[in-house]
């Protein structure tokens, strides 16, 4: 059985950019998130993580930059993914607009909190 998708012309709009963003950020997140999870969850483990551990890790600027990238890409990827899921369930365009703005604020606030903590470090 031969069924393939025909390539057509796509007008560039917000959804088109979001579609591409999900794929490129997703590919980038594979090394970023997997390395983070492998080290922190699997190899180190939550029983060896405490305030000192975080301070020690963030003493290295490289890890701070790493965490900053992980925060930016993972959370934006996730919130946009949630928006795409919701779009399947919310029929009214008006309500979806409200939800999208709500998600944007949610994303901005949580990202800002995380970014301040990474820059500020352990107190």
């Amino acid at each position, binding site marked *: *059985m*031969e*069924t*393939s*998708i025909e*390539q057509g012309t796509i007008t560039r709009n917000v959804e088109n950019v979001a579609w*591409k963003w999900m*794929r*490129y950020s*997703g*590919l980038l*997140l*594979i090394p970023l*998130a*997997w390395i983070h*999870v*492998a080290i922190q*969850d*699997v*190899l180190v*483990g*939550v*029983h060896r*993580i*405490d*305030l000192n551990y*975080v*301070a020690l890790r963030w003493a290295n600027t490289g890890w701070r930059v790493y965490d900053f990238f992980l*925060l930016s890409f*993972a*959370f934006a990827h*996730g*919130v946009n*993914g*949630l928006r795409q*899921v919701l779009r*399947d*369930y919310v*029929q009214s365009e008006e309500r979806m607009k409200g939800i999208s703005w709500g998600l944007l604020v949610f994303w901005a606030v*949580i*990202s800002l*909190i*995380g970014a*301040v*903590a990474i820059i*500020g*470090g*352990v*107190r």
Partner: protein
Amino acid sequence: MNDFKLTLTGLVRYAGREGQLSFILHRLTGLGTLLFLTIHILDTSTVYFFPNLYSHAIDIYRSTPFMIGEIFLVFSVIYHGVNGARIAIFDLFSPKQWSIPNERKTAAWTLAIAIVLWLPALFLMGRSLLVNNFGL
């Protein structure tokens, strides 16, 4: 809400085979990871905003239910990544390869690869759970 009910009943009734299974797994693992990620950003942020609270957050993560949840979280991150790579590579680089036979074959391979990658994590995290929480 009706749409949600329809989704749940549809999950059982609709026989979409591998494609449907990977669609559902991709969404569930993605949403699950986002839920954890949101909580995780906030609890880690306490190291700057409320350093005294950080140890309480870590204590919760060290409890048995959360450690079991963490093992599933690792599976979610692995599966979502492998399946996401499959989608991204097909979509971006060879959209003409998106055929139903290819979909079925690659969806099955995706699940197999994810499980194989997860097994070492399952072993190490399971051991950590038994050693730290049950004194084995």
